């Protein structure tokens, strides 16, 4: 793990953010599983928005819907779900910051998440420049397909890595 990364964990350790998060996690009855469920519901919205859009672009799902129309309609749901997931995730991140910032799988998760968000944002912004942006030429449609394939892989890896944070020893310390 690079030092700049692990030092973020050290910085947060003992901060007000940590004590606040730990207070909520320890005091409110059922808070950890409830917040985790909110986090997974956010992932369900990721599936229903960007993953479904990617599957549509690849010709695998909801073929009656148009790519540009879907993008405009679904992206706001995605951005709100991501905002919600940053908040729900932050409770655990701030609660045990050194656990996460020393965890290589958490590093992987962010390495998938950042390009996934940027790629989706780029796709969204481009589709707003022109009506039917992605459907106007064959070249653009193939670009959209390339983006969709990459985006699908990235978002699924984000969800996958998230669950593996708790199982880091299976990858880094094989039996």
């Amino acid at each position, binding site marked *: 793990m690079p030092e700049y990364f692990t030092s973020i964990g050290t910085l947060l350790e003992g901060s007000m953010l940590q004590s606040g998060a730990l207070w909520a996690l320890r005091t409110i009855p059922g808070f950890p*599983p409830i917040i985790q469920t909110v986090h*997974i519901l956010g992932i*369900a919205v990721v599936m229903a928005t960007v993953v479904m859009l990617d599957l549509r672009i690849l010709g695998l799902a909801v073929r009656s819907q148009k790519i540009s129309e879907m993008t405009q309609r679904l992206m706001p749901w995605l951005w709100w779900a991501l905002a919600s997931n940053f908040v729900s995730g932050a409770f655990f991140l701030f609660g045990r910051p050194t656990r996460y910032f020393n965890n290589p799988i958490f590093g992987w998760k962010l390495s998938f998440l950042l390009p996934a968000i940027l790629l989706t944002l780029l796709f969204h912004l481009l589709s707003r420049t022109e009506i039917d942006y992605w459907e106007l030429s064959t070249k653009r449609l193939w670009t959209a397909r390339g983006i969709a394939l990459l985006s699908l892989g990235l978002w699924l890896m984000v969800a*996958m890595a998230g669950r593996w944070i708790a199982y880091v020893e299976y990858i880094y310390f094989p*039996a």
Partner: protein
Amino acid sequence: MEFLRSPKWIDVENWPLSWEIGGTAWFPFLESIHVIAAAMVVGSILMVDLRLLGLAATRYPITTLSNELVPWSWGAFVIATITGLGMFITRAASHVVNPAFQWKIVLLVLAGANMAYFHFRVYKHVAQWDTAVATPTQLKLIGSMSLFLWAGVMLAGRWVGHII
């Protein structure tokens, strides 16, 4: 509920497959696939529910959305069931007496009943409200029931791991 205490559940835990999954990276692998599949089940159902509530995708007929999305719900449900069973057998005896697991099964059955009621009873009259933006109260009730029940399945499912 005597069968929940049956020693047969211990036998399940001792199947060679249960040991293989429980003692290797198979467990977290199945679990991560389970989360992705479950998110797809709930995500695809959520899209139909929001349409039933008249809150999203109102430009599409309910039949179109249902026909295009429900196969994804079922496909993901099959994957979630297989991966779920794979995890279940590693701790079968503990799971069957785990209140969170019991709630999860009850909520799953209720969610299934809600869905069956919609498809076998209400759906016959689809022509009356297929393209309606302001959907009838009955559809709104079914849609919100579905949202609450599936969120409950997730909550109970997540809680299983906090009790085991």
